[in-house]
């Protein structure tokens, strides 16, 4: 007895090619060295107004980071995760998008949201602690800052797919940290985007650390953008401290997405100059001389120096940018002069479209408590 009919096997079967279309995956690999524009002849090709605008944003961005950190140290924010050193990425991410596009930021990316037009106080609502989230996502087309790492990436992909299904021209730019790329959600999101050819750009800000954990403990990949190949999408590698380079790479990726070319995975190599948040003690896990090294590639400094060298900026222009940044900061400070006192009754307002009977009971309890407290206070004041 044999199990097989020999007749069914033509002589050539063994050597028959498999039906796997194999294009060359090498074309999807990112550049070997992070792309740079500043300090290269390519920089000269940029529109001067764009250069000045980027400089202003990067410069104000730094001032914002300093101010928000100060507010956190004064206790006016519960916590603040700064993007000091990452301003080039934050600014470029917002700057490449058109009005109809969407930004999906992480918990750290308040700056990108602000550059996109979000009121800084509303961008910082979650950090202040009066509510989980401030701004209307639909106004400036910025999704809520996402705290659970990488979970916003599938949202971005679904959002982009929906736009395509509705025939809309939207591109979605989704941000994530180097640490966040280790989460399964990262993998699932890029894979869905690739399969659906969804118009999404994934921007990985590799700032060297996930809290205390350095990149080498996060991945053995040569570049985080190498991961693109495994999803059949192109990877790009860029100097994240060079705002022009980031702008260029993202701009190309956005165009590609808009034209139906599907997602791109971008790694921007940068560095977190500040501790993880104001309450972090980074001396526990990094040699502060490393920070000093990176300060020499400070994206604000690098930009100013380059633009001065190109004759795009002079002392006056820098002075003016500084004044504008200072105004921004002063305004922000002023708006933190009074602490908010959120209404406790709002705790029940948005759990469901319509309160359940159970929530109505609990609402009544809290209302009674508040009334009793007010009465007690009134009695005391008499």
């Amino acid at each position, binding site marked *: 007895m044999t199990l097989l009919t020999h007749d069914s096997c033509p002589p050539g079967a063994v050597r028959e090619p498999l039906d796997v279309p194999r294009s060359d995956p090498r074309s999807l690999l990112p550049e070997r060295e992070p792309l740079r524009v500043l300090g290269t002849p390519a920089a000269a090709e940029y529109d001067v107004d764009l250069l000045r605008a980027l400089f202003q944003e990067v410069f104000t961005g730094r001032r914002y980071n300093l101010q928000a950190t100060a507010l956190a140290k004064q206790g006016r924010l519960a916590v603040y995760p700064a993007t000091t050193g990452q301003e080039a990425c934050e600014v470029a991410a917002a700057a490449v998008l058109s009005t109809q596009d969407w930004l999906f930021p992480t918990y750290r990316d308040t700056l990108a949201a602000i550059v996109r037009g979000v009121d800084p106080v509303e961008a910082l609502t979650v950090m202040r602690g009066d509510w989980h989230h401030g701004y209307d996502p639909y106004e400036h087309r910025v999704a809520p800052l996402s705290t*659970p790492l990488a979970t916003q990436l*599938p949202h971005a*992909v679904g959002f982009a797919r929906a736009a395509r299904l509705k025939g809309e021209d939207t591109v979605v730019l989704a941000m994530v940290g180097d640490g966040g790329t280790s989460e399964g959600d990262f993998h699932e999101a890029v894979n869905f985007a690739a399969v659906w050819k969804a118009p999404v750009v994934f921007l990985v800000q590799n700032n060297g650390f996930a809290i205390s954990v350095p990149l080498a403990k996060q991945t053995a990949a040569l570049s985080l953008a190498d991961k693109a190949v495994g999803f059949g999408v192109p990877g790009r590698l860029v100097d994240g401290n060079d705002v022009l380079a980031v702008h260029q790479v993202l701009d190309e990726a956005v165009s590609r997405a808009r034209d139906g070319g599907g997602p791109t995975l971008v790694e921007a190599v940068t560095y977190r100059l500040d501790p993880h948040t104001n309450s972090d003690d980074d001396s526990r896990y990094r040699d502060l001389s490393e920070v000093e090294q990176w300060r020499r590639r400070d994206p604000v400094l690098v930009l100013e120096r380059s633009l001065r060298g190109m004759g795009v900026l002079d002392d006056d222009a820098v002075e003016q940018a500084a004044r504008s940044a200072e105004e921004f900061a002063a305004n922000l400070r002023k708006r933190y002069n009074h602490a908010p006192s959120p209404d406790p009754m*709002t705790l029940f307002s948005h759990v469901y479209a319509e309160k359940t009977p159970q929530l109505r009971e609990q609402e009544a309890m809290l209302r009674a408590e508040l009334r009793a407290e007010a009465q007690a206070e009134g009695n005391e004041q008499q």
Partner: protein
Amino acid sequence: MTNGATTVTFSAPAGASPGQRSTTMAQALNAALRDALRDDPTVHIMGEDVGALGGVFRITDGLAAEFGSDRCADTPLAEAGILGTAVGMAMNGLRPVVEMQFDSFAYPAFEQLVSHVARMRNRTQGRMTLPLTIRIPYGGGIGAVEHHSDSSEAYYMHTPGLHLVCPATHADAYGLLRQSIASDDPVVFLEPKRLYWSKDQWSSDSSEQVDPAGVAAVRRRGTSATLITYGPSLPLCMAAAEAAVEEGWQLEVVDLRSLVPFDDETVCAAVRRTGRAVVVHESAGFAGAGAEIAARITERCFHHLEAPILRVAGLDIPYPPPMLEGRHLPSVDRILDAVARLQWETDIRGGEVHVAGL
């Protein structure tokens, strides 16, 4: 879940022939999905094998063929990705209806469910809402191997921001699913697997209206004690009530229909009428839905109770292999045993109460 209206009805499709016919619950669910796709172009179904295959339980049978693979889309095999991308679609104005292949295979999506689906409306003060339905073939009793018979309702019930619906009849399967899809809030919709093949005289073009979720139904009137249940255990409770007649008990049977919102009013009224109650469900009893039900009824009806509210639930063990699931699941006998323990002699105050916690 009712978008402001107190009763949500879906009218018969124009030109449909009236009359009822023998239908499975799977077909009623399929009809609800088909009608939802037809009535609202923003409805999109997605999940594993929901396309050409029609789902492993055939609930999406024929929908990809009729509405195209964009409206009824096979996804990559990744549940967090399915739910996470559905969240994004809902953010962008669509009404995704997600199928999780089995209870257990919804667990990879737990973070998305708890940290985002349940919270987006609250987080954004009502600005960003998620009109999202998560269909889960639910429960056991179908002879399936490990990981295919879990009951996960207690996890979702304890997560504020989610609606939690579980039909037990064909009319509710259709009506509650249509309501869930129309809801502007996320709904976890539990489909009792063991009822998928149950037949009933039902047709989607009958103009039968169902109550909104949040309203429990008294499925049988009784005077001796009240059985409180939902989903797959309703037929069991009806059978127990039938059997109890012989023992001289007239059991009232309440079908909750939804666990969130919870209908305290109907439940408490039923318990006050009878003074005794047993809660019945499949999932493990410990910290299960029955605990909440028993606790809240007791809080509200304490002085009407002749006996503690008892629970008949699954054992506190991982769901057993097929050959032993009958020993795990509630049965008519266990329900009648519990009813028998409802202290029919009244003068035992001070005595020790033996309860097996089931």
